[in-house]
């Protein structure tokens, strides 16, 4: 009976693995085929096999058509910077809301949570106006102030640092920390910042992991906002770069698959190395992705 149960468990696991892995296999195989063969193979088992005229020509086509490495760097830089700054800012506010006592705390919390109701599309245009008017310090042959932040990294980073979900998750996590830790630190004369930096944050590993994932992935997939604010190719992220393959009345499917493979493989490898940490952190905070 135990053996049967074990076999069923493995069968279910294999089935689920197939379901999740097959699209990736299709993508990789399609990236190796010319468009004509790729489309011919769709709907048959051949689309999951390296059959027909296999080559790396689509990969060559990707690098020929777009500055892929530049786009990848831009996305990684924007996503990483936003995540790091977001962790700092959101954890500080989460700490202030969870641990400190101050007047108006509940109102501030309610306002933060209320921003979750609004989808990004609702605030996109006002945000666009704001970013067109805000000043920035530029270093072009000397230090001077310029108006507007379009065509820059900062326009892709600044609006997304503060994040209601991040604040909420940190706040919830800090609430679970034993009161005694904070009280004994205060008796020892620790400032709020020291308590936050030396006690709360080192214990917030699961929350940091979860908020990192929830910030990093949407930023890597960022699409609408860069379209609106980035006109210069040198600042474009990968998801906008994907659109370069839809030209006039034709679509370069093989190159799209090669582009996506180049994007996906590093992420999958990273996940395989860090899956225990990812799963652990999400389970600890109780958030489903």
């Amino acid at each position: 009976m135990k053996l049967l149960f074990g076999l069923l468990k493995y069968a279910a696991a294999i089935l689920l693995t197939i379901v999740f892995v097959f699209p990736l296999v299709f993508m990789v195989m399609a990236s190796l085929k010319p468009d004509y063969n790729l489309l011919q193979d769709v709907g048959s088992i051949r689309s999951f096999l390296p059959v027909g005229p296999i080559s790396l020509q689509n990969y060559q086509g990707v690098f020929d058509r777009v500055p892929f490495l530049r786009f990848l760097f831009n996305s990684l830089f924007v996503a990483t910077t936003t995540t790091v700054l977001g962790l700092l800012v959101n954890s500080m506010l989460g700490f202030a809301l969870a641990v400190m006592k101050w007047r108006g705390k509940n109102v501030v919390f309610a306002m933060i949570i209320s921003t979750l109701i609004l989808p990004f599309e609702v605030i996109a245009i006002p945000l666009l106006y704001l970013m067109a008017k805000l000043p920035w310090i530029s270093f072009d042959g000397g230090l001077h102030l310029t108006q507007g932040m379009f065509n820059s990294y900062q326009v892709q980073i600044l609006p997304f640092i503060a994040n209601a979900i991040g604040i909420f998750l940190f706040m919830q996590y800090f609430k679970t920390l034993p009161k005694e830790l904070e009280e004994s630190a205060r008796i020892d004369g620790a400032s709020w910042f020291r308590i936050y930096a030396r006690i709360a944050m080192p214990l917030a590993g699961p929350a940091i992991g979860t908020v990192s994932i929830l910030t990093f992935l949407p930023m890597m997939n960022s699409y609408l906002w860069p379209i609106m604010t980035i006109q210069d190719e040198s600042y474009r992220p990968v998801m906008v770069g994907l659109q370069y393959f839809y030209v006039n009345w034709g679509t370069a499917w093989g190159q799209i698959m090669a582009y996506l493979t180049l994007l996906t493989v590093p992420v999958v490898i990273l996940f395989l190395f860090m899956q225990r940490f990812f799963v652990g952190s999400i389970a600890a905070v109780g958030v489903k992705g």
Partner: protein
Amino acid sequence: MNRTWRFSLPVAAVTLGLTLPLLATPAQAAGSQTIQLWTHNGGNKQELADVNAVVKAFNASHKQYKVVVKAFPQINYNDAVVAAAASKQLPCLLDSDAPVIPAWAYAGYLAPLNLDPKVVKSINASAKGMWKGKLYSFGMYDAVVGLVTRKSTLAALGLRTPSLAKPWTLAEFNNALAKAKASGKYQYAIDLGTGWDGEWYPYGFSPFLQSFGGDLINRKTYRNADNVLNGGKAVAFGTWFQGLFANGYAPKRTDATMRDNGLVNGSVAFSWNFFNQTQFDALKGDMIVLPPPNLGVKPVVGGGSWQWAMSSSCNAKTGANAFLKFMAQTKYFKMFSDTLSNLPVTAAATKVSKVFGPGTDMNIAAVLSAKYAVIRPPTPAYPVIAKVFEAALKNIINGADVQSELDNAVNQIDQNLQDNHYYGF
């Protein structure tokens, strides 16, 4: 200093640091003669190379202005332009798909052009973006679709070869499709390019509607679609169009293989699509482009492709206009046509074009465009009309009631016209 203050001070310092620059004044751009040019050709290597070639030549010929190219992927180009317009960040020069020009001119994004009247006159009507009698854009090329088949197919099916003087009638066209299907040689009698979405629907299929005698909007007043898009002739079009799919003549959704290669690989007998020299070469003298059938009133094909315009917010209009004047030369019209296999837009460019010149296989494209092209309605309502028409036609293809679908489309279009005070018409 208590603990709360110790925590608050760094936060206050950061806030102050971020807020102070708000008092800044905009950077001065005076004196700069750099002219930004936006194009939809990101990822389209050849067309971008053509644009860059013109820009390079222009920059070399002037010291006063420097045009700088920024290329966008076509699929999100319009969104980028609209966002830029909303935040007053439009470039001086930009290209646009022809039917959108009136909407952008009406919205105040664009400024009228000041070109040599002789040059303007030389450009085909379908390659000019007009709004309220003023020229807002012109194209370096145009596009045209054709009813493409093989001479051997016509012979095998016993069909008359239609001529420009005597195109097929509706009955003859229907007969040709029925015979192609009955022959059993083809997967489908005709490919209508239904694998494409969006603009293909009004561009590719409204010529059939117009050939029946209907239209997308009343072109006399531009104030209603009622009785035009849902009148008897439009319903006749819808019913006939639905029949093409119901009778199994055309696939409801063409896959890319059939759309791009169906004629050459023999899976379809006819193709209503763009055509090119590669197909002529592949079929070695057997390919023939027929005139569009006359489905009731007149044969029609669509006209109008990407065009160049100048923004109203441009602070270097003289330079931008100088660039457009520079661009509108026969050698550049020819270059765009020959390198892209797109139709030349002036008689002079057609004459010298290697691909479309007299005696070439592709010359028929110029003939069809000159004789039958009808541009999509030049009204700011067009983007709405296009979406509504596409939705209605897709439902019709899938078997919805034709009259109801067209009535619904008319209601939406007329409501939009009313909501926008008829866009000044």
